[in-house]
């Protein structure tokens, strides 16, 4: 998710917030982010091919059905072939539909015809999204649970268990970090950092 410029609609920001539910640990963020990336790329292909035929309303219909179809397919595939991952993040995958729709909002108004360009833009948005989720996930897991990457051995490809690090035994940690308000706060902090970085260059 490209961190929005001041011009972007604040509603877009808020509407993406359900996705914050999934960033409460590195594992969940990573798994979810990868699925999101995949969905973005796959969905962009049929979408871009069609868009120019339609006016805005038609485009919305195309985008909605394509994103919904791709996410549902991803869920089925995950449930069947990546069961551990599905157990971890499966409940949040439908949120991708909302997220995907918002990310492609620009396409409704100014569609590209070149599917490759479309896919690349999708990948770029997707990468930002994964990165933001990872940062959020790491920060929230660290503060909230006192650990990093716990559960990574459950991901497909089975990274070794030594990658899991428990930095401190937190009986309760700082619970706020892993609850939704904590996600908003962390998100706000991320924005603050980004704005600070921007302003210092001007």
């Amino acid at each position: 998710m490209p961190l929005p410029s001041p011009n972007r609609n604040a509603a877009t920001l808020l509407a993406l917030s359900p996705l914050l539910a999934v960033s409460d640990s590195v594992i969940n963020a990573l798994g979810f982010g990868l699925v999101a990336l995949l969905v973005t790329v796959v969905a962009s292909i049929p979408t871009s091919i069609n868009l120019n035929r339609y006016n805005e309303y038609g485009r919305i219909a195309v985008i909605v059905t394509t994103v919904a179809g791709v996410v549902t397919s991803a869920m089925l595939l995950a449930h069947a072939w990546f069961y551990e991952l599905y157990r971890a993040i499966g409940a949040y995958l439908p949120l991708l539909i909302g997220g995907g729709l918002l990310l492609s909002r620009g396409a409704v108004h100014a569609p590209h015809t070149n599917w490759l360009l479309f896919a690349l833009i999708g990948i770029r948005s997707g990468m930002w999204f994964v990165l933001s989720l990872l940062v959020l996930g790491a920060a929230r897991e660290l503060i909230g649970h006192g650990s990093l990457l716990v559960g990574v051995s459950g991901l497909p490809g089975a990274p070794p268990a030594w990658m899991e690090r428990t930095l401190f035994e937190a009986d309760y940690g700082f619970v706020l970090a892993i609850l939704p308000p904590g996600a908003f706060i962390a998100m706000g902090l991320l924005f603050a950092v980004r704005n600070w970085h921007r302003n210092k260059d001007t």
Partner: protein
Amino acid sequence: MGIRPDALASLGSRTSRLRAAALLVAGVVGTVLVVAALQRLTSERIAHNERLWLISKLESLVPSSLRDNDLYTDRTQVRPQDLLGTEAPVTIYRARKNGIAAAAILSPIAPDGYGGSIELLVAVDYEGAVLGVQVLAHRETPGIGDGFEPRRSNWLQSFKGRTLDNPEQARWTIRKDGGNFDQFTGASVTPRAIIKAVRRALEYYRANRETIFNAAAQP
């Protein structure tokens, strides 16, 4: 929200509008068909995954020294109405050794969790002492209500060895209510619900033990 006149005009001739509409319908139908096909293709594998997961849960509840039968297939369904938390049929898995009843795993529901129903597995040995409790599904608040999760605490272990008389009935609740069971910090609704459901499962078991083991297997 009316359609702006120029929105339609931008599409060009009637033919091209019709063609676009037809394409859209075809696209939607196509998407639905693809998803439906995928669902067909994956349903078996999904059922397999779910079954394996459940079996691993069942087997972890009853030590293998107590059983030599197939836990998963030696099951029966009961309609306990109240005691097991639901009006739907509840599955009970039986463990036997040398054909003799050794343990049972009930799958009650705790209907009064904070976020809704909590699906449980309660394993009891033949005499009615708890062998273990696991949570299959829940919607409790992460970070607060999910203190029973094994990655968070050993709370579920505190049920091991308990019976209807250990502790006595009045103490089958959280400490805050004068009972023997810990509650996880900041949450009382969730542990109360689970404790109540476990106790009722024990009561059901005591009242229906013979029926449970003698009923024919219904895989």
